[in-house]
């Protein structure tokens, strides 16, 4: 447990730093930015204290907010996906999740992709709606959500593949 806790602390800090120092400056084509830090929420163990998990996600979003001067929109977005994560897990993994026996490295690629996609799109949609904060610009919100999601999903999948294969050796 102690070991697990420390892994997640390190992951938390590293993901926030990578996000604010590197990824937030990408601005591919002016507006496409990946938000890799949600990987912390995606990879958090399934068997968990839910209160703590929701609170940690809030803290993750808030620390990113602090660096990017964005008020509380990252916090709101991460909080929501951490709250709806059980639903997404059930939808993408089905009965395996019911028995709480999933290991992220062991499940097949398609299911993992569905899981990452659902949470990423929800996260980005909330993030960009709060960022733009204007209902008449809903098309801009959707456009940003779509393109940034694609970027984030690709990065998340790549990073999770790279690190899971390193663990097996």
């Amino acid at each position, binding site marked *: 447990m102690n070991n697990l806790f420390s892994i997640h602390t390190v992951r938390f800090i590293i993901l926030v730093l990578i996000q604010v120092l590197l990824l937030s400056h990408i601005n591919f084509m002016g507006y496409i930015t990946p938000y890799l830090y949600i990987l912390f929420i995606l990879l958090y163990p399934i068997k968990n204290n839910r209160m703590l998990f929701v609170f940690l996600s809030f803290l993750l979003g808030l620390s990113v907010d602090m660096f990017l*001067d964005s008020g509380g929109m990252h916090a709101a977005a991460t909080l929501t996906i951490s709250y709806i994560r059980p639903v997404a897990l059930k939808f993408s993994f089905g009965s395996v999740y019911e028995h709480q026996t999933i290991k992220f490295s062991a499940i097949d690629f398609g299911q993992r992709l569905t899981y990452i996609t659902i949470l990423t799109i929800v996260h980005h949609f909330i993030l960009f709606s*709060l*960022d733009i904060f204007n209902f008449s610009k809903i098309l801009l919100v959707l456009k940003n959500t779509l393109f940034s999601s694609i970027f984030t999903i690709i990065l998340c999948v790549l990073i999770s593949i790279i690190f899971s294969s390193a663990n097996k050796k």
Partner: protein
Amino acid sequence: MQQIVNFIIRNKVFLLFLLLFSVSIGFTIQSHSYHKSKFINSANFLSGGIYNASNGISDYFDLKEQNKILQEENNRLKTILFNTNIGLDSTYIDTISFDKKYKFSTAQVIKNSYSQNNNVLTINKGANDSIRIDLGVITSKGLLGIIDNTSSGYATVLSILNTTSNISAQLKKTNHFGSLHWNGISEKYIQLTEIPEVAPVVIGDTIITSGRSDIFPKGIPIGIVKDFKLDESENYYDIEVFLFNDMTNIEHVYIIENKDTKIIKELIEKNNE
């Protein structure tokens, strides 16, 4: 009573979610209004320190470019200095003539941002360097923004590329003034509205600050007119301004302090009474 306690225990995750969600929405709404994001901003010790350390590494990569920009500015200022009639050897008659209205200080941008809807920059000077909220920030090429928040060592700057920012600007050749907004689309262009229809606007005209607020002095360059059209009421021009500043490449900035701010504010308050 028992039922209420049971309800809370059963739904504790949902209640925590609701509580934290409303907190974050509150922060978001605060950040969308001018000068309100008091708690969560990058001027604090932790994020300011980390940005400062990262900037300490990355500013080496940009040294050549920044040197060139500073040299260009030196060149321009020298041209002005040696072409005016003030003799360089003239002595000050009394100590009062040292007392200038505007005080300038320099700072370095440690975090730049230009692609979001509400862009905020962080600089490496703060309250300890007598930086206050509402001071103006410019670069060697033109307008940059207004100080939004300060901590002891760092401050955040509300960029002109921010949908909540609103700065008074005017045409250089006449005194028709309007207000400067940003529509969030391109970091190269900013929108000047409320220029009256009688103003002789031509593509290529220079836009400068109007000096009507107590933050910026008159005459700081902003950009040139790229395009203009009448708005819906056909009384005012909406002008698309091409910025002199390359907002993606900003390192050295100047902070302007107007020493008369207090007096001006007192006067305005007296008028309002």
